[in-house]
């Protein structure tokens, strides 16, 4: 019997791409889809996906839950469960168009929800923590239901297939986002499960990642101490939880988070002015240091952070043009989005590239 994602750890190679407008200007999904085409050979048709930020302004106060269901039984069970804790203001199928290369689709639903104030008060939790817990509960306990996106005013879209086909399937040309990230996957096995595609997300954090981290089990066993459950056994999942833990629960900044997961070498720390802080972070969160090759783009409401492993074992380039910043595994992808992109460079290993939408821009 073939094992699905989560029952077995499947190494993958990948392509990633992202574009953000610092002015918060909305872009349709066409450009980001195009950017994946020159990197076609970095995927093998077994997973593609996108994350889009700023796409649900009319529902921006509500968590947008994107859920895959195996069948209507699992949908009914899950909806019943959701009603116990949330007000559901809208429930609908996510619009798709038939595509010859995208088949065997599950039921794909989205819900705009708000946690019930009475439930939050009873459980003494803030709404983010409550929502995160419910997402993890659905994914581990409700058979045939899988929440693959759970942030506000953003959404992930993913499937088994090449990313350019996945983008067309989800009609991403009809959405407007100020930040897009994209992922094409080259898994070594063929589980063929939609939930296993990337990006992976929790609340508004999403990760697209290229690499296979060698620290996986050290990271997983550390993060699972704090209420996270790594059900997919993928790098992307554990990195998302690490980001959520360090930033949302521990209150670290993006820069501090980068100094934990791609900590400078001790020999570098010795010569740094902020060595006391770097030593503190590395010592305290040693279990969250990520080794082995990775290039990741972490998306969140209002910005992104791109980061390479500290040896720079995966390619990643950055370019810009006007208000836009482009990041991709290959320069060709950036040139597809913007032929006149400027200041193209490769960030050093462990050097975070942080881009935020300008302050004051209404998203």
């Amino acid at each position, binding site marked *: 019997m073939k094992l699905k994602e989560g029952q077995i750890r499947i190494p993958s190679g990948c392509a990633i791409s992202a574009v953000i407008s610092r002015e918060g200007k909305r872009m349709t999904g066409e450009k980001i889809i195009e950017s994946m085409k020159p990197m076609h050979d970095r995927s093998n048709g077994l997973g593609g996906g996108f994350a889009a930020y700023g796409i649900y302004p009319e529902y921006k106060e509500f968590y947008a839950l994107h859920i895959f269901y195996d069948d209507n039984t699992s949908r009914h069970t899950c909806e019943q469960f959701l009603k116990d804790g949330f007000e559901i203001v809208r429930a609908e199928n996510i619009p798709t168009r038939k595509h010859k290369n995208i088949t065997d689709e599950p039921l794909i639903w989205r819900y705009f929800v708000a946690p019930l104030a009475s439930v939050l008060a009873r459980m003494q939790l803030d709404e983010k923590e409550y929502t995160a817990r419910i997402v993890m509960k659905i994914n581990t306990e409700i058979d045939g239901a899988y929440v693959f996106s759970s942030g506000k005013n953003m959404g992930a879209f993913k499937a088994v297939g090449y990313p350019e086909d996945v983008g067309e399937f989800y009609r991403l040309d009809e959405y407007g986002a100020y930040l897009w990230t994209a992922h094409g996957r080259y898994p070594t096995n063929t589980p063929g499960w939609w939930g296993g595609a990337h990006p992976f997300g929790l609340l508004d954090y999403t990760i697209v990642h290229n690499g296979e981290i*060698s620290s996986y089990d050290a990271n997983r066993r*550390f993060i699972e*101490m704090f209420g996270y459950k790594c059900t997919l056994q993928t790098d992307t999942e554990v990195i998302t939880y690490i980001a959520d833990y360090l930033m949302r629960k*521990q209150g670290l900044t993006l820069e501090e988070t980068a100094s934990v997961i791609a900590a400078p070498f*001790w020999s570098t720390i010795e010569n740094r002015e902020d060595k006391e802080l770097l*030593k503190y972070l590395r010592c305290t969160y*040693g279990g969250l240091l990520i080794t082995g090759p990775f290039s990741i783009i972490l998306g969140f409401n209002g910005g992104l952070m791109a980061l390479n492993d500290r040896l720079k074992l995966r390619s990643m380039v950055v370019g810009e043009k006007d208000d836009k910043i482009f990041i991709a595994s290959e320069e060709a992808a950036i040139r597809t989005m913007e032929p006149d992109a400027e200041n193209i460079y490769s960030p050093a290993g462990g050097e975070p590239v942080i881009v935020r939408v300008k302050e004051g821009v209404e998203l």
Partner: protein
Amino acid sequence: MSINYIYPEYEVVRNDARCIRCRVCERQCANEVHSYDEERNLLISDEAKCVNCKRCVTLCPTHALKIVKSDCRFKENANWTDDTIREIYKQAESGGVLLSSMGNPKPLPVYWDKILINASQVTNPSIDPLREPMETKVFLGKKPDKVKRDENGNIICKTSPQLELSIPIMFSAMSYGSISYNAHASLARAATELGIYYNTGEGGLHEDFYQYGPNTIVQVASGRFGVHKDYLEAGAAVEIKMGQGAKPGIGGHLPGAKIVGDVSRTRMIPEGSDAISPAPHHDIYSIEDLRQLVYSLKEATEYKKPVIVKVAAVHNIAAIASGIARSGADIIAIDGFRGGTGAAPTRIRDNVGIPIELALASVDQRLRDEGIRNNVSLVVGGSIRCASDVVKAIALGADACYIATGALLALGCHLCRSCQGGKCNWGIATQRPELTKRLNPDIGSQRLINLMTAWKHEIKELMGGMGINSIEALRGNRLMLRGVGLNGKELEILGISHAGE
């Protein structure tokens, strides 16, 4: 009266054609096995006294000597082995408890040898430690639960006291008294040079070694020998010894014959008196008492030094360790049942306690299940024999390893397991001046440094092969391990998959 048949266990085989009658064997053997018969111009042997320590064999300039196991044995019997029969004869004669030294020699499972390590192929690259940085530095001690910031939003970079190790290995506790001054000098100097720590054991700290304090762990054991204010302040950390892998549940006994001169002064007991450590600490009959001692020692050292609590690996070790973690300890040291000793009752050494691999795996998992693994560091010993044992221990979840037998071997020990006799021909487990001078601390410390340097290279190679360039990323990374020839329960406890899975 029956007469016991106890034939010497070993034979001294002397090649007379090679023997030049230099009599070095005679001078070197503190057990007085060899003697010279002038009339016949022959060296003769009293093999009944031989412990097979190989001192004479090593120093014989013409390789005229070898020690072999005697083939004059009892009638073969798989149940009543020679050892068993011999022990019965000894006890029938003496009425006493059998004593023995060093680790458990029985053929019980060594799980390290049934665990295999991973390496990168294709999907991610291995890393060459000769070309890329490969970090083995470790900090031991309690880590903060939550970041605190000052009024400007800057992180307050204050942690509980930490021990900084250049490699995740320390020299485990061996008291001055059980081993010699020169052995201690070798350990202290090597630890300082290497940027790691050695441990005083329960015999106090000789005044000459206070200079190595920054690399010394001072031990407080049930006998409290040699414990005073300066002693506690001299060390980098204080270790409370609750138990030892070779003899869980019992105390210690250093015979009066070894309590001479400096040993007596350092232990703060009269010369010639037996140093008897009680089985329990008589101020610790429960976990809440342990907490009081932990905090007493922290008060005495002004919260500047981490407190280690060392326990033997016993059946309920996971719950015990969890209790220790909640009692203020910064570091828990667990000693497995194969751990060495200067002297222990044979029955206890060979039958009490559990393997360190299983103890480590269950403790690490329990502390994680309770969410307190980062509140405490885990050090394991008994017995860590080589660099791959270290790597496997770290991957199972240890922060660092304690080694002692390995260190003694580097100093010249040949594992004859006769430390209790006090006649160590290698100058290690003895206080006789004519024997202790055989261990030169210049050479001893250099050999320890060589050993640790070699292991460091090997650890780096193994890490690089896995694509890991920092020891933190190996800690608890059980996916890097696979079992071979283990049953389902063993794999479940170790938290690893079987090879091929």
